[in-house]
């Protein structure tokens, strides 16, 4: 049975929801191909933040007055809405600043506090610094071993190496769902099976997957999952750690302060229930409200449709890059193995020069190490140029990128 293809996105209508897309950059219309770094925000999200401050702003969980109650309701409804977005129980959903903080929370309260010297943590060669440095800090301080699953030349993980490493004394695998450089979507089903069979927990860096494809923590069967609001049409300053109840209940607090306590004396304290135990101090209620609005916005359009749209764009992007010539594409070319974020190098032109020339005609791409220095070393390049798409990206913008790259070749005589 063939799945009926979804109707293509009405991108023109979607674009009208994003006021920044009307901007001109250096006299040209903005072509925003940097959504993997942060996405733009639709009016409904911007307005949700403003409306919260204009009508219901108060501190939460602490008061008997009506505004405090409205703010608390908005906050906890937001928690439920975001949990629903990843098919999770809200009791396991902890709000953090971003993916980075979510991963640091697991590294500090689980790896550093609950693992034993000699235990091993496994990551991969394609990890973002945010899914590497926290484990380095925890490993150094708690005497843990840190190992990385090797990458194959096609930009996918070496599953033999995974099998070798996902054995005792491995206690935790922390792996990205989708690479922010290569676009590779990792085979989490196999990795999770191997890790769990070895008695290790699985932490998923979902910063690049939750915004772009349907993600269910129940189906993934992972133990921890981290992502950022700002990469999914939501506000900056809000991220999520979801965790299964067993590790979450057992873990000691991450930060101490208001809201996370049950009873406090000058010398000792006891802790509130999860998820509150991990949310110290005044939370960013406005951003939670904004993130819930982003979930509504995305779900109204449909993640499956968004994912199909991005696949079509990625196909066009790969075609354009191949047609131009003298371009090294990093990461898999098979569209079933990747998402809509493509890194490449133009001849031996430095990525910054590529980025600057593109910016002169309004095209925003990322150029640099993308917070993946070990991956750059593995690829043997100092930096790459990365173009990344989202629901508001049009085929014309991909073509504009092609023209810009032709100009790069002209200027640098590649």
């Amino acid at each position, binding site marked *: 049975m063939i799945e009926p293809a979804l109707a293509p996105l009405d991108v023109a209508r979607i674009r009208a929801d994003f006021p920044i897309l009307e901007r001109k950059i250096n006299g040209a219309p903005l072509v925003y191909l940097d959504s993997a770094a942060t996405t733009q925000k639709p009016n409904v999200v911007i307005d949700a933040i403003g409306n919260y401050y204009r009508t219901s702003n108060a501190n939460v*969980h*602490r*008061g*008997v007055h009506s505004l*405090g*109650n409205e703010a608390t*309701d908005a906050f906890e409804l937001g928690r439920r809405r975001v949990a629903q977005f990843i098919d999770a129980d809200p009791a396991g959903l902890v709000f953090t600043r971003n993916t980075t903080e979510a991963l640091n929370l697991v590294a500090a309260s689980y790896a550093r506090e609950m693992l034993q010297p000699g235990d091993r943590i496994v990551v991969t060669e394609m990890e973002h610094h945010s899914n590497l440095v926290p484990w380095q800090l925890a490993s150094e301080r708690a005497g843990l071993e840190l190992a990385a699953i090797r990458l194959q030349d096609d930009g996918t993980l070496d599953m033999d190496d995974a099998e070798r490493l996902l054995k005792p004394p491995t206690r935790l695998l922390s792996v990205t769902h989708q690479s922010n450089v290569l676009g590779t979507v990792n085979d989490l089903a196999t990795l999770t099976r191997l890790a769990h069979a070895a008695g290790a927990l699985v932490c998923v860096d979902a910063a690049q997957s939750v915004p772009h494809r349907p993600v269910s923590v129940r189906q993934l069967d992972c133990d921890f999952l981290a992502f950022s609001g700002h990469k999914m049409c939501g506000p900056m300053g809000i991220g999520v750690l979801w965790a299964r109840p067993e590790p979450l209940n057992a873990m000691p607090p991450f930060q101490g302060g208001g809201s996370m*306590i*049950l*009873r406090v004396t000058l010398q000792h304290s006891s802790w*509130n229930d999860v998820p509150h135990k991990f949310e110290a101090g005044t939370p960013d209620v406005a951003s939670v409200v904004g993130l819930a609005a982003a979930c509504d916005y995305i779900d109204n359009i449909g993640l499956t449709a968004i994912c199909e749209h991005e696949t079509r764009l990625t196909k066009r992007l790969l075609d354009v890059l191949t047609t131009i010539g003298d371009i090294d594409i990093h990461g898999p070319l098979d569209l079933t193995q990747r998402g809509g974020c493509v890194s490449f190098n133009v001849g031996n032109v430095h990525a910054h020069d590529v980025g600057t020339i593109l910016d002169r005609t309004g095209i925003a791409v990322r150029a640099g190490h993308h917070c993946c220095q070990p991956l750059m070393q593995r690829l043997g390049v100092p930096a790459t140029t990365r173009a990344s798409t989202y629901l508001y990206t049009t085929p014309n913008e991909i073509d504009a990128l092609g023209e810009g790259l032709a100009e790069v070749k002209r200027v640098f005589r590649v």
Partner: protein
Amino acid sequence: MVGFSNTTPVEDDLYREIVLEHYSHPRHRGELETASSRVDATNPLCGDELSLAWRVEGGRISGIAFSGRGCSISMASASMLCEALDGQDMATAADIAARFRSMLLDKGPSDGLGDLEALRGVAAYPVRIKCAVLAWNALLQELAGTAETEP
């Protein structure tokens, strides 16, 4: 004269006479030395603290008491709980508790709840509902726990 003259103040919808009366003269307040069950409840965000203890003999509650401190609603509710459940068989006790919760959380009917009906007004004050159900939740939790461990 009810609801007629405006020199007689209409009764407060939340702080009904009978609620304030239970608050200032709580029934069953104290310790129950011979308790068969005992449970603590706290509301960490408010600081309410409550202990509830009861004795079951022949399938009936033959003694019940509470102690602790908190707002008028949580204390009056605990006092009324003790009064309503003392002498009841366990099934009736659980039924009253369920109907009381339903009255507050789902605006369910209050028939036959007696004095407890006086707490109906709390339903209009969302932040105070957790004060009113504090003792009841503790009771139901303990009953559920007991039910599970007994065959």
